[in-house]
């Protein structure tokens, strides 16, 4: 196990509890997908693992070492964090933006050199955004920005990648492209924790799935066992059908909608 989270609990100082008693672990090359309704604390949990917040109870161990005793820079060499997209004031070029991932590997008083640029370019190539490498980062599309952030996290050369809703705000094609890149990453030896709004994505690219509800994990285990009709109904409050599709050779998850459907079945 490269990451072990035990009885983790978090609340904002003096505020309400966000989650408690969360236990899970991450194996080498594993993809863990965290599902759950809006505002349930998925992002907070990911931020705790990224050491941006400190747990109020429980512990997180990274390669056997307690996270709270580690320095930021040591953690940054092992964990890459891709936050949700936000506005950037200064128009750094995509290349300069990706290059920032070299920070944990550089001494405090130095600037990146040719080798660091080469590493950044390699990751830019990997996620397929070479064409926009010289564009300002605030003039590219949401999908490209997400890819740029992933490239930056990869430039850290981490063992674990944390993705906070990597596919929200992205169109259909870009969502799948991100999932394909996640597959590539696990092939190259990186473990991934991501939060998502799409139960389907759990089938598409996860080993394990956790469903977060009422401040802890309601279900946690293999995707086929956890993403069930009852669990999704309890989580999202809508009926969901999970059927096996021969066309794509996997389970798919289709939400129901009350009222009539606007499209007529073709006969």
């Amino acid at each position, binding site marked *: 196990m490269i990451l072990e989270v035990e009885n983790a609990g978090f609340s904002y*100082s003096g505020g309400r509890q966000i989650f408690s008693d969360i236990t899970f672990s991450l194996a080498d090359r594993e993809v863990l997908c965290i599902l759950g309704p809006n505002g349930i604390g998925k992002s907070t949990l990911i931020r705790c693992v990224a050491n941006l917040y400190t747990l109020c109870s429980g512990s997180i161990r990274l390669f056997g070492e307690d996270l709270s005793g580690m320095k930021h*820079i040591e953690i940054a060499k092992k964990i890459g964090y891709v*936050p949700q997209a936000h506005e*950037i004031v*200064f128009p*750094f070029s995509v290349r*300069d933006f990706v290059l920032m991932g070299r*920070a944990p590997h*550089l001494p405090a008083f130095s600037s990146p050199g040719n080798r660091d640029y080469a590493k950044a370019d390699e990751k830019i190539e990997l996620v397929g955004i070479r064409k926009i490498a010289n564009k300002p980062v605030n003039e590219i599309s949401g999908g490209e920005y997400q890819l740029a952030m992933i490239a930056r996290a990869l430039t850290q050369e981490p063992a674990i990648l944390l993705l906070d809703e990597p596919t929200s705000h992205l169109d259909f094609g870009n969502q799948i492209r991100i999932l394909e890149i996640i597959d590539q990453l696990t092939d190259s030896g990186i473990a991934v924790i991501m939060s998502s709004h799409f139960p389907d994505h759990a089938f598409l690219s996860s080993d394990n799935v956790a469903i977060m509800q009422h401040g802890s994990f309601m279900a946690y285990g293999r995707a086929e066992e956890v993403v069930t009709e009852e669990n999704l109904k309890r989580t999202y409050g809508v009926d969901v059908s999970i059927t096996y599709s021969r066309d794509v050779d996997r389970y798919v998850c289709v939400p129901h909608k009350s009222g009539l459907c606007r499209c007529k079945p073709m006969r």
Partner: protein
Amino acid sequence: MDWISGRIRMISVKIISFLRFPPVRTFLIFGVLPILFVVSLFLGRYDVSPSHVIQLLAAPVINLMPANIIHINPSWTPTEENVIYQIRLPRVIASILVGAGLAIAGAAYQGLFKNPLVSPDILGVSSGAGFGAALAILLGLGSFIIQMSAFCFGILAVAITYLLSRSYRTTPTLILVLSGIIVAAFFSALTSFTKLVADPYEKLPAITFWLMGSLASVRYSDILMIAPPLLIASAVLILIRWRINLLAVGDDEARALGIDTKRMSQFIILCSTLITACAVCIAGIIGWVGLIVPHLGRMLVGPDYKKLLPVAFVLGASYMLIIDDIARNLTSAEIPLGILTAIIGAPFFAYLLNRRSVGWT
């Protein structure tokens, strides 16, 4: 109106692409400052011929060599030597230090606060220094004490701002800015009070002139006093400059990339405050330089702090030299620097805001 703004935009696009044309850019960054340095020594009320100026400048260096190889015999008058070495040269050096310092401090703060509209006095250093100077003038103290008082109150104001912001726990940079506004307002009020009680014929004008900024009475001793801290703090900022990029993107992301953001912002605040306090204590309050010059730098080399910070340092020196040349040569009486930087800076900044829509920031 549309036609006019369209024209302005078109012209400005042309200007920018001209400025970014590599030979022009290289000249602006490396060539302008040495030229301005010499030209500034030519200019002044007392007429010294350019050839004398150059001989005067070259003589101390060249005459170090054995006299039988090359030697410059003094063809200038003692008055000329005095004007160049005791009046113009210290002033030119002081302009370079003050301009470079304010520009680099402003650029660092804009990254730290993730805001392109921030200037070095955002945390109250100028207001504090202004009060410190006003108080010392009111008490009839000497010029050295006035400078020290300005320096100390400038640092004190930022220290208060910082402590005030620490007493809250949320979003530190926003609270820092708000605390800065509070502290600046407080010290401005104290300055106004000293002006109110100051003797209107002697001390009030002195306070007013100090607050408007001037390098007219600067001496070598002033330069020796401010140069070491100002240059060391600038060097520290230049050493950590690439990491300011990460702060400019976001605190959380910077931390996830292994930066100790709290310590780094303390570092930047300490260095920038030291630089600004040094500049203000010999030159008085000079606004706009620290706000505009970083933007000039971004026009030339883009937002990457690895290039921007050294470029801002050099451009700030050039900008201040031009301002000071205008201040001492345009009219028969000295024009305070603060007035000139605002008169030149405000329209320029309006133009910059217009440029934003074209998208370079």
